[in-house]
């Protein structure tokens, strides 16, 4: 799963330690969401900066755009906001809109998009396993890390299993068209659960037979140099500079 999302390139973004990237991504998003939406110049700066970083990471913009489509449902929610609300109204073409709703809706779309783009840059420039290792260094409990690594390891296996079940249904002429087919699909879901659970039991037994005692063997963690800290933190830092600059100009 993670392998399909990761885009192998050689760039400074790819080579930075993953936990630093996670910290930088969250810090950047925090700066962006704390900026009032009325300071619109700052958001133009943020978008340019995100695209610059994507370019440095050699991520094609088409890929960035395609994966950003995931946020469409929330955009619908935001689009409704100027139409239903209260307070001051104004007329824009054929529509009679609420000013506050328009501002809030725009804020949700813009900030949400910045968050989505940042997360996409993170997962395109970092393998899933590396992200997990990064989260581990940021003190995600070891057991959670283990659960997540099992998920990454077996997600393709289980997806393929589900695909095979679909092929089996299709080859028997099954086509799901409505409520009356739910029983068949739910039975498939039940079978998938049993197969996943049994696989979990087998994996556990094979781990035990290799000497598992509740902890996974660990690689040495290397310390990051101050220079890489400094470099990766330019991501949120530039956002702060943009924020300060636009606030000062605005005043």
């Amino acid at each position, binding site marked *: *799963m*993670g392998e399909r999302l990761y885009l192998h390139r050689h760039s400074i973004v790819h080579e930075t330690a993953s936990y630093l990237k*996670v910290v930088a991504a969250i810090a950047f*998003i925090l700066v962006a*969401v*704390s900026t009032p939406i009325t300071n619109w110049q700052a958001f133009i700066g943020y978008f340019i900066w995100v695209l610059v970083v994507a370019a440095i990471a050699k991520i094609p913009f088409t890929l960035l755009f395609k994966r950003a489509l*995931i946020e469409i449902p*929330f955009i619908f929610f935001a689009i409704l906001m100027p139409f*239903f*609300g*209260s*307070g001051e109204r104004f007329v824009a073409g054929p529509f009679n809109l609420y000013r506050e*709703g328009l501002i*809030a*809706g725009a804020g*949700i779309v813009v*900030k*949400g998009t*910045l*968050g989505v783009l*940042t*997360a996409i840059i993170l997962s395109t420039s970092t393998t*899933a396993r590396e*992200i997990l290792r990064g*989260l581990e260094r940021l003190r995600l409990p070891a*057991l*959670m890390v*283990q*659960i*997540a690594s*099992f*998920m990454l*390891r*077996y*997600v393709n296996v*289980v997806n393929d299993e*589900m695909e095979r079940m679909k092929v089996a249904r299709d080859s028997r002429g099954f086509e*799901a*068209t*409505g*409520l009356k087919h*739910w029983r068949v*699909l*739910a*039975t498939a*879901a*039940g*079978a*998938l*659960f*049993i197969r*996943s*659970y049994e*696989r*979990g*039991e087998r*994996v*556990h037994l094979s781990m*035990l037979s290799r000497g*598992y005692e509740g902890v996974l063997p660990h690689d040495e963690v290397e310390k990051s140099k101050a220079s890489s800290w400094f470099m990766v933190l330019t991501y949120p830092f530039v956002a702060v500079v943009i924020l300060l600059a636009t606030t000062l100009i605005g005043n």
Partner: protein
Amino acid sequence: MHIPDGFIDVPTSAAFVGLSAIGVGAALKGARTQLDDKTAPLAGLTAVFIFAVQMLNFPVVAGTSGHLIGAALAAVLVGPWAATLALTVVLLMQAFLFADGGLTALGLSVFNMSIISVWVGYAVFLLIKKILPKNKSSVAIAASIAAAISVPAAAFGFWIQYVIGATGTFSDSAVFTSMIGIHVLIGIGEAIITGLTVTAVLASRSDLVFGWKNNQKVLEIKNV
């Protein structure tokens, strides 16, 4: 479709990161006592199952379809502790890998789906199971009612977060009616699928169903 960044303000998001951390921490402890060193592989494979089953489309009408959310289903199948862990991991991976749900909104989503939804679902399940006669179909019925309530319960969690720290302009009552309304409908679908799925698992491997385990008859050893 999860809460994006910037939808709920930063202080509220941060507070819910704290609450979620406490809840997940308790689940880590609970799962360890229940599953011991089986926790990692079993909760991991449950997470995979939830992730996969969310991609199974159930056709509704005229080309639209829905999918399972799976909080109540997971709670009934593997127990609430492991269910909380599995759903949390699914949300983490969705946010970090697929950009589905904001990174700064993770605490909010985890609270709604892996804590409220799972535990409300499980509480309802236990309650209904107590009332009904002790047989397999009661377990399926209880699971399905639990699922029906677990979905609007998560929406209710979202509503509380919206009331505390909304950046939008919809009035609290409008959000309440629309969110709960939509999720009651989604809950009906969830209930049907959950009931059918639990029935299917009970039919072939009832020993795997956590919510059924206490009902099994212990084999007697007799000296003849």
